[in-house]
């Protein structure tokens, strides 16, 4: 093993234990050692992640899908129904190529998985979540009046919403893009879901969730709404969506829900132990940076700022524990690599991070 020279007790601990140590260790040294161990080895990380992605549920049984005669990667979707229970994945309702069924949640999930697969394939030559043709699995009607959608490391899970505040979580395409992108991030940098790296993990899901929607609707940066989860609220809610990338903190202001608490810049960064250290709060900061960069570059975001963010996400130099500044530096570097140093693209990216307070004015633009 390449890392033998750095081996300590942390080398043999599973990542979830390391994360727990990183979060709870009594001394800064222990925390740092755990964080260090988490970010050690990129090759091992990928191997481990692939194993994890292929390991559980039915995923292991379904082998990766081979390209068809045209050589183009093919989708392989399976949608399950939990029937308001919590046992995953539930009963199969629709598999690849089958006609629409009467259950709209099943069909929305099926279509959304397909749109997300097409987005990654057509724009980034990415063959599914793991770039190895991983079959896509989603379960709908999870639990009772469940106001959530999540990625469990192997598949997507959608609740029906309570009907009072939230509707069906399969409705907005960006929610589906968001959850699948957690799988993509998991097979790349696998940003630790805690604090700043966790907020980056969330932001990347919002960014690509929004891009999937913009690409599908063929919206330019000026036409796009830059909202996350539009259509999820019932009409009684005073709000348009769950998050706004254009103006974090303004998505809703409702008597029951309160006001959208997302910060848009580092001055308003929130320190909190809940929500894995505020990953759904502080994601507003990198979200807004992406919006600013995409708007400055103009055109369609999936050909401008999108590829810069994608190049950053798959860069092996992006550590699992990266903070906002480390991620920002890498986006500036990739803007230069893709569009040229001192190009308007690179300047737009640098300015965006500087405006949200992540990069300093005096900082050198990375070559």
């Amino acid at each position, binding site marked *: 093993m390449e890392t033998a020279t750095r081996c300590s007790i942390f080398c043999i601990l599973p990542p979830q*234990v390391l994360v727990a140590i990183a979060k709870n260790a009594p001394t800064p040294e222990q925390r740092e050692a755990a964080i260090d161990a988490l970010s050690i080895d990129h090759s091992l990380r990928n191997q481990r992640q692939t194993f994890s992605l292929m390991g559980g549920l039915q995923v292991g049984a379904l082998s990766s899908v081979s390209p068809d005669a045209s050589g183009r990667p093919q989708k392989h979707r399976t949608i399950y129904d939990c029937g308001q229970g919590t046992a*995953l994945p539930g009963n199969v309702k629709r598999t690849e190529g089958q006609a629409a069924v009467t259950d709209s949640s099943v069909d929305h999930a099926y279509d959304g998985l397909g749109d997300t697969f097409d987005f990654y394939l057509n724009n980034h030559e990415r063959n599914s979540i793991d770039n190895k043709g991983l079959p896509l699995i989603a379960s709908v009607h999870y639990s009772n009046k469940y106001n*959530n959608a999540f*990625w469990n490391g192997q598949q997507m899970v959608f609740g029906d919403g309570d009907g009072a505040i939230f509707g069906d979580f399969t409705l907005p395409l960006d929610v589906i893009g968001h959850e699948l992108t957690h799988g993509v991030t*998991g097979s790349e940098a696998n940003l630790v879901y805690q604090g700043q790296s966790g907020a980056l993990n969330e932001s990347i899901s919002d960014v690509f969730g929004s891009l999937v929607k913009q690409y599908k609707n063929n919206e330019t940066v000026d036409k796009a709404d830059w909202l996350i989860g539009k259509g999820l609220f019932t009409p009684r809610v005073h709000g348009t969506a769950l998050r706004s990338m254009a103006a974090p903190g303004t998505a809703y202001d409702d008597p029951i829900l309160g006001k959208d*608490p*997302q910060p848009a810049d580092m001055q308003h960064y929130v320190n909190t132990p809940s929500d894995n250290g505020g990953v759904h709060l502080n994601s507003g900061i990198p979200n807004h940076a992406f919006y600013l960069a995409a708007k400055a570059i103009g055109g369609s975001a999936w050909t401008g700022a999108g590829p810069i963010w994608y190049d950053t996400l798959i860069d092996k130099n992006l550590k699992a524990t990266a903070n906002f500044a480390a991620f920002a530096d890498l986006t500036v570097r990739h803007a230069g690599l893709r569009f040229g140093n001192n190009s308007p693209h690179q300047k737009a990216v640098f300015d965006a991070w500087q405006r949200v307070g992540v990069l300093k004015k005096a900082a050198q633009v990375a070559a």
Partner: protein
Amino acid sequence: MRRIHVAVVIWLSVLFAPSYGKCGTTVVLLRHAEKATSPANDPPLSAAGESRANVLADVLADAGVGAIFITEYQRTRQTAAPLAAQLHVNPQVIPASNSHELVEVIRNIHEGVVVVVGHSNTIPTIIAGLGGPSVMISDNEFDNLFILTIGPSGTSFVRLHYGSNSTSAKAPAEKQEHAMQLKFSRSGGFAGTATNVEGVVTFHDGTAEVNSSNGYQRSLNPAEVQSLKQSMDLKYLRGLGAPQTDLRDAYQYDVVIDLDNKKRESFSFHDQAAEGKTNNLLQWIAEECRKIWEYRTKQ
């Protein structure tokens, strides 16, 4: 063997001469700390034993210890290790079967403080050999600290205990801890802060009441109180470990249990943690959070 011991005595005399007057020898005797279950012939200390060894180092830090005697078994070396490291004293090995020789060595030390780390069957022999009373150490006792003072006017003997109580079984102690309050909160999820909820269960004898800052309130019926109390199995909850980390956008539940002995237990879990588990506390909390949310949406 005898030559070695003579050398030890000379070395000890030199060591103790400057700092102690002729006020006799204080011998601190103890059995090794809690041991692991394997290997059977020479097990190391268990985690409990290691922490007891650290306590020993604290207890004897300022006692003026000039020499430490251990046996050939690693559990005695490990018990003495934190103290030895702290004092920069190199422990002397005298085999467990040679207790009478150790007694002879100690009798030839006329001043200072020495520590003897032995076994449940050798420590009583050594104490008796040095003129102390007859003592017995049972198999599950690891917290005895015997102090034998040998002076010109005779011996005095004190039996102390150090570290956590090793004889009272752990399980009954835990059963005596009663929950006074159960605080829980739900955060995370795709919607983030918008769907946060929290609540507190307060127990009074056989009754309990749930309250949330949003005005939600309900009394638990006696059967539910009993079932909830049973589900707060601290041993099980302490063993839950770190939350699953490949979950993204799953709800995070943070739980704090305040016990009547002023102790506090806290842990976190995510959606699905309760799936397939026999303990229903996690399911109860998830369901109560849903009810508290529902109450909020009906305002």
